Each structure stands twice: as C-alpha cells, then as structure tokens.
C-alpha cells in the first residue's frame, strides 16, 4: 500500500523547502523515499498547484482536564453559541463554531478539519492527570500530550525549603513525568497558587511565599535546571507571575533571566506584556518584550492572542483569576484549591473591540507576532480558550499574513486603544513558510516530536493540503485533504474517517529511591495512595484506541 501525493508545493521548513514542487510517498503511515519502479502505487492524489504542509501542531491548548470540564459544566449556554451573529462575529468565518467549550469529540473534529494533527494540554495537574488523559482519550482524530504542572505543589516547595540538592529535584521531576504520562513540565504563577492558599493575593518574582520563604525566581531556577539536566526536549513551560496585571511586563523581562541562560518557554506572553502608561494606566509593552525576546536566544514564547467575542478563561492561576473574577462576563466564576498540588480558576470573558483594554490586548498580541524576528522561537496560540477558541486560528493567520486586512480590523477598534498602538507601522506580513515554521516545524522542534511537523523521509505522515487562496482565512479554515498517519481523514474540510491519535510522553530515567520519601509523604499527608496517583500505560492503551509514544530525551547535560 503506497500512496503518492503528486506535484504539491511543499512548505517544509525542517528541510528548508519553501514552495518546492515535489512528490511525497507514504507507506505504513510514514513518508518514504521514492519507491523502486517495481513497487505498486496504490493510490495517487494529484496536488498540482496545492500547498502542502505537515499537519499543524498546537503546542498550547486547554483541551482537557478538570478546569476545562468545569468550564463546560458552568457554561451550558456556550453550546448554543455555535451560530453566533453578534457584531464581534466579523472575526470568524461562517464555519467557525465559536464554541469556547467544545466537547472532547468536537475538539478533535474541529482541529483536524483545520489541518491540525496534534494538540498539547499545557496545564495537566498531576493529581488530576487521570481525568486529563480520560478526556484526551475521548478526543478523536489528533495526537495529544500534556505538560505536568509543578512549582506550587507542597511536596516540591518543601524540597526547596529543605535545600534538597538538584539531583533530588531532578528525580522528582522525572518521576512526575512518568507518573502523569506527560511530555513536559509547566509552572503556573510560580509559587503563587500555593501562596494564595496562605491568603497572599499577589506574588512578585522576588517576593517570598510567606510559608515556605522561597521566591518564584528560585522555583524557576530549580525547575528549568531539572528539565534541562534531565534532557527533556521541551523547555520549562512558564506562565509568569502577575498575569493580566498592568505593568507586568517588568516581571516578564525579569523572568527571562531567572534561569541563567537555561532554555525556558514563556507562554501566552501577550497576557504578560502590559505597561502602565497613558491616561488609563494600561499600555502596550510589546516593543520591550519583543526586543528582549529577540535578544534572549534561550527564550521561546507563544503569543496567546485574544480575538473578540465570547470565551472563557480556564487557568491553573487561581490567585490571579480570583482578581479577574470581577471582570467575569457572564458574571460567574469557579475558583478552586486542589489537593496541595495546585488550583484552578475558570472565569468567562467577553472581549469587546470597543473596550479600551480588550482592543489594546488584541493589538499587543499582534505587535509581538510582528516584532519577534525569529519564527522558530514564537508560536501561534490563542491559549485556547483563554484568548479565543482555537477555531479562530485561520482568522489569526490572515491577520498575520495580510496587512490590509489587519489594518482594516484595527481601524474598527476603540479609538483610544488605536492611539496607544503602533500596529499600523508594522508592515510585516508572514509568509507561508513562516506560518509553517510557527505551526509545524517550530512546534515539533520545541516539544521534541522528531518525526512530526515535517515532511522528510521517515516522518509520520500527518499531512495537510490546502488550496492557495489570497483569503488566507478561507484557505486555512478548510484544507482539501488531511492525512493522519498516512490515512485520508479529511476531505474538503469534512471528516471522512474517524481515527484515534496517540499520546506523546517523555520518560527520562531517574532513581526509583525517590518513591521512598514520596510514599511517606502520601501516607502522611495525602488522601490517596502513591500507587493510585500513578497512571499505568494500560489505562491509556487498554481500550484498544489509545497508544503511548515515548520520546527520547536529548543527551542529558550536566
């Protein structure tokens, strides 16, 4: 069974191919070299004139787990917003579902229909990992994976206070990756979620958690070092302190130096790029943040673009969500402390283009996209659903690729916000090649998915085929074909075959003796046994649909 994709225009940044016309051969779910003349081609797709890219990878999207399900439960009215016709609807195509809280099934379908073949849940709470995996298991069509949240758990903070050595920290971090079946480590408002439980309401980078007497900076240093020394490909995923607060850009700039040059990824950086200038004491610090990103090569970031309309913010950062709850629209929120592990805050939001702050948030995200020079270090996200549902990606891509379209949208914004943004002076338009970097090659590279995000020999045949259109939103909303592991699963933007993707994990080696102290901790302080906390491979693969892929670590560097 060999499938031939003939004459497509290939955009494959990993191999430097920028619109090269080339044939692709697929066998057993993989891209293979041109077979010998004696081998039979079973099926041929003529892709003359079509744009061919690897399947897109969303490296940060809240697709499953406790807070996502709480958002669904709290907002049944969102299931009715699929035919949304209010003014903000100009941001989306008629096919966009506008649903910020899709079911697991819809999540998989909407992703694959846009040509995305993988999405990563960035806030998998270790104690809630089983639920996250259950939901991801019920998400069809795409591959998935999670970043386990650490840095607010009492076990880790006790280690820091007790000045445990880096090896002990590393063993714990590796153990968490195994126990939770994750591929990366995330820290959310380092130390802040924990401090909130002691009634602290804000925590700055160099401020002590009142109980543990450790600072966010120390937490970042310890965790980024652990991730690096263990050889985990995905750099520490950092949701900085002070999310959403005016003036927080300084925290973000300072955070870049917290790891002493060890790689870190700053997530949804738009929400952390706010200044205090102007009459309203809220301004864009996109220029300072972008300049720092350009300079600090060890830092990567995803944007977390906001787009106008109704959505919901679901975050582990209950400290900041408690403060944001006063802006909830509709007026309700769920704030939770969870299991001496972390917390969550779910606050519905409606971003309005005539609201000064919202309009400026929109501009700030785009300013960052256009000012960061290296597309390998900046990633396209809306922090789904926090900035906007992931279904708005095609619209966002058009904003990046089409200056006229962008400036027309800008001209409709709140006038005070327009006056505070330099967006129209940024002439950059992203190329197809750069979009392929941001949404494919770069994302795969960042997470360490060596056989995804590219079209080279041996790659998994996750492939998306588009018709080249000047309306980039229309183009990216509805691919002609999507292949998942070599099978045709989407034709003309509609699912033609249901498949179940794999779960990507990283499992660096560690000293199993770490379980001795953990068991003692669980027995004394937890409400479950250590063995119940750990997720066995069988739990993911025994329903006959799921499977686990373990990615090799980079060479551990000490």
């Amino acid at each position, binding site marked *: 069974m060999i499938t031939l994709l003939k004459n497509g225009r290939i955009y494959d940044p990993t191999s430097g191919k920028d619109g090269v016309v080339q044939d692709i051969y697929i066998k057993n779910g993989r891209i293979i070299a041109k077979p010998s003349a004696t081998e039979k081609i079973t099926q041929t797709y003529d892709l003359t004139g079509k744009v061919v890219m690897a399947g897109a990878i969303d490296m940060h999207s809240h697709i499953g787990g406790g807070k996502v399900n709480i958002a*669904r439960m709290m907002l049944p009215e969102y299931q009715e917003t699929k035919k949304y016709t209010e003014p903000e609807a100009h941001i989306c195509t008629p096919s966009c579902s506008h649903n910020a809280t899709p079911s697991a099934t819809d999540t998989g379908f909407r992703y694959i229909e846009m040509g995305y073949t993988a999405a990563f849940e960035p806030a998998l*709470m270790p*104690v809630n990992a089983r639920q996250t995996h259950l939901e991801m298991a*019920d998400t069809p069509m795409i591959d998935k994976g999670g970043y386990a949240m650490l840095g607010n758990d009492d076990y880790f903070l006790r280690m820091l206070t007790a000045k445990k050595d880096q090896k002990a920290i590393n063993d714990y971090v590796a153990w968490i990756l195994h126990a939770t079946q994750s591929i990366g480590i995330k820290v959310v408002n380092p130390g802040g979620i924990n401090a909130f439980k002691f009634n602290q309401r804000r925590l700055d980078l160099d401020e002590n958690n009142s109980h543990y007497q450790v600072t966010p900076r120390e937490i970042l240093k310890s965790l980024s070092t652990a991730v690096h020394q263990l050889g985990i490909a995905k750099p520490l995923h950092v949701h900085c302190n002070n999310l959403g607060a005016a003036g927080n850009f300084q925290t973000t700039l300072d955070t870049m130096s917290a790891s002493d040059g060890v790689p870190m990824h700053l997530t949804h950086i738009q929400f952390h790029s706010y200044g205090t200038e102007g009459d309203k004491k809220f301004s864009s610090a996109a220029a300072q943040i972008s300049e720092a990103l350009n300079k600090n090569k060890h830092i990567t970031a995803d944007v977390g673009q906001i787009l106008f309309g109704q959505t919901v913010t679901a975050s582990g950062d209950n400290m900041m969500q408690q403060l944001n709850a006063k802006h909830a629209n509709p007026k309700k929120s769920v704030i939770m*402390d969870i299991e001496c592990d972390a917390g969550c805050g779910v606050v519905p939001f409606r971003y309005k283009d005539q609201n000064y702050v919202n309009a400026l948030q929109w501009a700030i995200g785009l300013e960052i996209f256009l000012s960061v020079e290296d597309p390998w270090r900046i990633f396209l996200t809306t922090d789904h659903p926090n900035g906007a549902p992931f279904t708005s990606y095609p619209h966002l891509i058009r904003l990046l690729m089409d200056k006229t379209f962008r400036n027309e949208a800008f001209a409709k914004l709140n006038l005070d916000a327009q006056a505070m943004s330099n967006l129209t002076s940024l002439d950059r338009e992203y190329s197809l090649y750069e979009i392929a970097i941001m949404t494919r090659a770069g994302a795969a590279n960042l997470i360490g998915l060596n056989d995804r995000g590219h079209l080279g020999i041996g790659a998994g045949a996750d492939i998306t085929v588009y018709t080249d259109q000047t309306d980039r939103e229309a183009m990216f909303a509805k691919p002609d074909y999507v292949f998942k592991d070599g099978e045709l699963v989407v034709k003309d933007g509609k699912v033609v075959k249901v498949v179940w993707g794999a779960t990507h994990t990283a499992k660096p080696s560690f000293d199993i003796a770490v379980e001795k102290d953990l068991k003692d901790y669980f027995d004394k*302080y937890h409400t479950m046994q250590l063995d119940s906390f750990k997720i066995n491979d069988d739990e993911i693969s025994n329903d006959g649909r799921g499977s686990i892929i373990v990615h090799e670590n980079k060479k551990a560097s000490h």
Partner: protein
Amino acid sequence: MKPSINTTLPITHCCPACGLLCDDLVLNSNSPVSINNACVKGISFFEKAFSESYAKPSVAGKPTDLNSAIQAAANILSKANHPLFAGLGTEVQGMRSTMRLAEKTSATLDHMHSEGTVRNTLAMQNSGWQTTTLTEIKNRADVILAIGTDIVSSYPRFFEKLVWNTNTLFNKPKPEVMYLGLAEETVKLPEIMSALNALMNAKNPLNKKPDNDLIGGVTIASLKQILEKLKTAKYGVVVWSASALKFPQAELTVQSITQLISKLNETNRVAGLPLNSGDGDSSVNNTSTWLSGYPTRNRFVNGHPEYDAYHFSTKNQLNRCDALLWISTFNAYQPPTCDAPTIVIGHPDMQFEKQPDVFIPVGIPGVDHTGTMFRMDSSVAMPLKKLRNSELLSLSDVISQIEAKLA
C-alpha cells in the same frame, strides 16, 4: 462458574461505596469478608458483592441465557423513539458506553441521585463558586462549618481521615467543627443562610437586633459567632449536602452558601465542599460533560446533545418515555415503576418486586472488573481494581453487545 478471587490476598484496593473512594482498604478474605480500614458502608458493599445469590439474566421474569437477554434489550431499544436511561449507577467506562448507546437511540440521561447534583449545578451555572478538595482540608482546615449534613452519614471515614488526623503539613490545630440546619432544622436553612449573608454587611439592620432573637431557630448571637470563626479562620471550609436540601428552589440556598463563601474570601481564605451522593454520580456527571458538552440531565436528539436540568429528570420522563433502561451496578437498587418496557442492567444481587421485561446482571466495578471513578471533590479520579474472576460481563461489554444488535 462460581466467582473466585483472582489475586493473592491480602490486597490493597479502592472502595466505591461512597464518594471518598478510600484506597487504603485491605481485603484479607472474601468468605467470610474480612477487610481492614473499611467503614460500615464499605463492609456492607463488599459483603453484598461477595454474596452468592446471583441472579441469572431473565426475560419477562423467566431465566434465560445472556445472548437472548441482550437481544431482547436490543429489540426494546430498537423500537423506542425516546427511551430514558436512568439510574446510571456506573463509573467512567460504563458511562462512556452508555452515552454512545444514548446517542444512537436518542435517549434521555438522568442519574438516580441527580436531585442533589442538579441543585449544585444550577447554583454553579448561575454564579460559580469557590471550592476545595480533601487533601487541602486534611492539611489546612482550621474551621469547618457543615450545613444540612453531619457529613459522617454520607462519608463514615471523613473525620477519621480529614479532621482527626494528626499528621498535617503545616502543624495546624484540629479544626473546630460547627453544624447548621441538621435533621428537621434543614428546612429553615433558606432563612438562616439569608441571615448569615445579611450579617456579613455591617450596615444591615439585622446586626442591630438583640443577640437572643431567633432566626430559623438559631440565635443571632450564634450566627454572629459562626461568622466570626469563619472570618478569623486561616482556612475555613464550608461543607454542604445538596441532597439534604429537600425543599423547593433549594438551589437558591446553595447559591446563598456559595455567596457567603465568596464574600468571606474578600479578606481571608474560606472554601466550599459540596458533598455528592454516590453510585457514581460524580463520575457520570463529569463523563457526560466532556463527551456531550453538558452535565446530566441531558439527551440526544438525532445525535445532537441537548440539556435541560428540569424537563429531563427521571420523574418527568417516566411517563413520557417509550422504554426505560435502568442501570445500577454498585447497589441492587430497583427501577422506579414505569409503564414502558423496562430493561434493568445491574448488580447481580438484584431482587425485584415487579419483574422487568429484561434483566441482565453485570459485574460490580472494583470487584469484577477494573474501572475509573471520580471522587466526591471531582478533582481526583481513582483506579478501581478487579478482585475476582466471574462470568459477569461489565456494563460496557453488555452495552456494546446491545449496540451491535440494534436494528
């Protein structure tokens, strides 16, 4: 084949008898049942599970083989246009299958304990809430206010595990436990909760009333004292049992509780803990939500999910449905009386006053097969073990076989 223990005893395992899902139980022997760390509910659950009065599948009250029973169930569901799937006493895996069958047969879904669940859901959907989980309580709580519940009737080991524990992360004192609205006083909770919220506002005239004035049978002085304890708590916890609030518009009382918690959080940390009722209610509600986008009381119409916390109740649908599928795998609960053809899939020890059209005994989760359950705080999902080999299929297996035989 007689069921036989498939593992070496003793074995540590997880108990699905209540929402705490204690996983420190040790089964020493199944005949007679000997378990360490089990509470009365747990012991009773396992004694019933290991009893040997196992029913056979039956059609119209007559024992038959499994295949015939499955075919009879499929026949009933094939003919039905709007069946009701009620009871839903199952875990995550069972609910996944049940949802799939519901989608194919345009069924309405409601759990046997949803009266309480829905009160909480409605309050949460109206204004949200601020809550906590068991390990936080064990290590942080210094004040606990229990509303409409003594807690221990629902969760016999709550105090042993979370209140009287001596090991805590922060060397806190044992929490002071206060109660409001127990037993016949529960109906007075709407009044009491309104008063507590009013007393939070210093300008409210209620603050000027004499201390020994009674509100809902409680003195103003006592209410003020409760507030004072909560306001000065390092980590206060307010526990309530929505299922105990058996009066009209009880969701407003839940909301009144969550509002008080929210107000208290403006200055210090206080969090809520809504209790569940068991029989997999938390598991079913969560699974339904991620699979369909809606919590239960929902239904499928031509493959599309719909949600209505009022109309899709078992009570409202019993007279409207044209088939009833009753599921109860943890306990041998009988179905409610229904004129429509009735299929029962459930606990092997089930006895009937009125024989259903079809009965299919299935394995008990955590005894006959593995599974996953959500704890009462919904943040933790626990794995259940298989303890014995038996010929009883799991609910998922039976549902899949019915699905395959649908006309």
